[in-house]
């Protein structure tokens, strides 16, 4: 058990891998770490591009017409 209401279970034991599962209430979000790493990377790329943002604002009127 992790805390009071999260349970880690062994679903399957194989030669090369062990499959684990997680039982948790619906109120608890569960995500693989790779997802967080990917999102952090996206966020970082998005944050530090001030010059591209400036150029982009010029394009917005044209892009809205294409939608």
């Amino acid at each position, binding site marked *: 058990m992790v805390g009071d209401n999260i349970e880690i279970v062994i679903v399957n034991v194989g030669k090369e891998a062990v499959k684990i599962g997680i039982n948790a209430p*619906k*109120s*608890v*979000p*569960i*995500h693989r770490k790779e*997802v*967080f790493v*990917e*999102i*952090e*990377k*996206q*966020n*970082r*790329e*998005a*944050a*530090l*591009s*001030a010059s*591209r*943002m*400036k*150029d*982009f*604002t010029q*394009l*917005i*009127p044209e*892009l809205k017409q*294409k*939608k």
Partner: protein
Amino acid sequence: MKKKVVNSPVFGQIEYTENDLVEFKKPILGFEECLKYLHIVKEENLPFSWFQAVDDSNILFMVTDPFFFFKDYEIKISDSESQSLQLKNPEDGLIFTIVSIPSDPKKITTNLKAPIVVNIKNKYAGQFVLNNDKYMTKTPILKEENNAGV
């Protein structure tokens, strides 16, 4: 209330007070030190707007109203996530998705997998990772003319 100033790399000097700030109770992933932002909205740029960090002026996110481009977009966040923003009614939550601008700006993408939710009642905000596998972190916003129907 005391007026403060942030020097935005895109918008220049902006005056604000504490009341103007959006406070991230669940930080933007990778930016755990920056919790306070100004939400900059300019009518002519809608549905795009910006979150400008006030503690580090270099940090600025362009976001969009995802429903402008994706009418069927669905957000389900957990009870604990709603509680972190004290969000009692779904209607009080404004949704934004972060936009990435590549070198060809027509290929802009938005992160539908991890939207930002702002509680309009208290200006608490968070970035939440959706459980839904069909949403991607880099979803193209613009459809190419020759890809109609994709």
